């Protein structure tokens, strides 16, 4: 910490020293290739970066004391630039190249982290598929990883996930879309200013809260309602999880759809109104078709969010891998099984533990495919008005 403060202080010092030296040269009648400020900036970033690199190296090699190495490096960097200040130093060009390099590095870190995660999941999945053949995973209909003869059939988990996603979408699609149309086309500015943030607030409710709402409020309600009508419904049902998950993705759909509907140029609406179209004709025949690709991609993003959602289904959907399309039965999902496989003490190389990675990889590939598709739809949409 102390060395960090010293590095920054030295860098600031380097800035002023170089900037003043360049300014003095300019005052002396020299034509600089960059304004004095850029000489200062260059000295600042060189000193700062040299100090930070030395600090990192000192952290890695205990023999190097950080308190000495880092300030020394920073000072060396600063002095080097200070000495290099001359009318021919292209300080601005070099400084901007350094800035560009920093920006690239920042995005590279995020990208390589993602690649690293995927690679590690893929490698562990490979270990899993060495123990369990891939076709019995992909096409098996029995998921019983803890049985004496374990069986890893993925199909019941997939159908459970799809069932809950379909229920969620059945709830969220009309609610989200209709509220988006209301917000974008009918609501006056005042209503919109209140209603939109309120809707988005729903997106901010932690999914664990939605999860126990599903498990403790919605599921018992469905069970009693079913009992009143003479049905027997499991206390953990796909319906309860799906309904609450639907509420979770309503703001996602409405907010994104509202944005794309708003992005339809006013000139389109004017053109339609000027033809004598009513407001609803204009919305149905001009605005909605124009916004459709964006709305589709909002839906796809909502679907991939629903597929990847864990907390609500862990609490409300249950652990029973039933291969069923009955919305009132207990089902389980890919995400629930991943968390179930990794909870508690595990042997790291057992097929049971490794199956979590295979499930994770499959889930990742599904949502990745959906996201890529959504991005392509959005790109197509952008070309429309270009």
């Amino acid at each position, binding site marked *: 910490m102390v060395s960090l403060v010293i590095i920054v202080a030295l860098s600031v010092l380097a800035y002023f020293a170089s900037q003043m030296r360049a300014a003095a040269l300019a005052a002396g009648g020299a034509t600089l290739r960059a304004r004095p400020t850029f000489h200062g900036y260059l000295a600042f970033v060189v000193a700062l970066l040299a100090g930070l690199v030395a600090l990192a190296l000192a952290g890695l090699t205990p023999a190097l004391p950080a308190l000495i190495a880092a300030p020394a490096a920073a000072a060396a960097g600063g002095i080097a630039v200070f000495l290099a200040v001359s009318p021919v130093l292209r300080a601005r060009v070099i400084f901007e190249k350094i800035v560009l390099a920093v920006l690239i590095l920042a995005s590279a870190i995020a990208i390589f982290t993602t690649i690293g995660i995927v690679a590690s999941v893929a490698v562990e999945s490979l270990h899993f598929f060495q123990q369990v053949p891939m076709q019995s995973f992909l096409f098996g209909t029995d998921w019983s990883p803890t049985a004496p003869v374990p069986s890893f059939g993925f199909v019941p988990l997939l159908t459970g996930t799809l069932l809950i996603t379909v229920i969620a979408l059945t709830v969220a699609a009309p609610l989200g879309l209709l509220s988006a149309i209301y917000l974008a086309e009918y609501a*006056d500015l005042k209503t919109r200013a209140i209603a939109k943030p309120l809707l988005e607030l729903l997106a901010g409710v932690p999914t664990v809260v939605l999860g126990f709402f599903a498990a403790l409020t919605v599921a018992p309600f469905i069970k009693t309602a079913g009992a009143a009508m003479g049905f027997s419904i499991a206390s953990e049902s796909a319906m309860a999880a799906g309904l609450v998950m639907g509420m979770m993705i309503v703001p996602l759909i409405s907010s994104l759809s509202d944005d794309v509907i708003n992005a339809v*140029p006013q*000139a*389109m*609406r*004017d*053109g*339609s*109104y*000027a*033809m*004598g*179209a*009513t407001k609803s*004709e204009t919305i149905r*025949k*001009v605005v909605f*078709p*124009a916004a459709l690709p964006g709305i589709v991609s909002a839906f796809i993003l909502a679907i991939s969010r629903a597929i990847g959602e864990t907390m609500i289904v862990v609490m409300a959907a249950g652990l029973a891998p039933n291969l069923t399309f009955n919305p009132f039965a207990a089902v389980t999902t890919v995400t629930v099984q991943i968390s179930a496989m990794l909870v508690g003490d595990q042997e790291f190389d057992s097929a049971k533990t490794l199956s979590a990675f295979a499930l994770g990889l499959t889930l990742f590939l599904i949502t990745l495919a959906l996201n890529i598709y959504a991005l392509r739809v959005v790109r197509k949409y952008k070309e*429309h*008005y270009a």
Partner: protein
Amino acid sequence: MNDMTFKTVFTPPQPKILATNPAKIIAEGVDVYYGEKHAIKNLSLTIPDKAVSAFIGPSGCGKSTFLRSINRMNDTIPGCRVTGVINVDGQAIYDPSIDVVDLRARIGMVFQKPNPFPKSIFENVAYGPRIHGLAKDKTALEQIVTESLKRASLWDEVKDRLHQPGTGLSGGQQQRLCIARAIAVNPEVILMDEPCSALDPIATARIEELITELKEKFCIVIVTHSMQQAARVSDLTAFFHLGILVEAGDTDEVFTSPQEKRTHDYITGRFG
């Protein structure tokens, strides 16, 4: 100064065009407000049928505002208020009994920037006939579309690609598509809000040619920033300044012997 602001300073003689062509649109004492802003002040003007009337004047003078009052497009702008009387064929269009949807079907509009819908060329033109139920069947609809595209002199260029997007056409073609779309519902009046300002000189010449052809059948009102355009295509010219209709008369009269100093200064390029 104050009484000057609120009435047309100069009452010109009746334009000659009104002697040959019947009046289509008569505005009397029209005021338009955007919230607090008084955009049109006590405007009275008679617009002839089967002729081209041009509104000229510097930006912000109210000419587009008045144009948008004629088909009540100003209704879509929050805070916009119109008082006074505008009659189309003797019918007061701001009367509560008027259905604005019917009104806009009778008074078509072409905008400054071509705004074809993101649909095919065919669907763009078929839009109006469809919503107003003008075609009994597919053949009738096709006929209306063909006819409108021909009248907008666009048919030869698009007849082989009717089902490709209208947004893929060039700017001038898009604007002619918008004109075809407007005439497909067989309006009586076509309002054009600077229809050529986004187009190159060749495309502009084609639109002007088209305007001259269309005035055989329609009452055309055009807002333009180009004095040459007004002189070339219009029969009647109205000069607006600061929300006031300064002068209106036969185009040749207005351009050769303007009665008002402000008109003279504007058309000779001294301001605006």
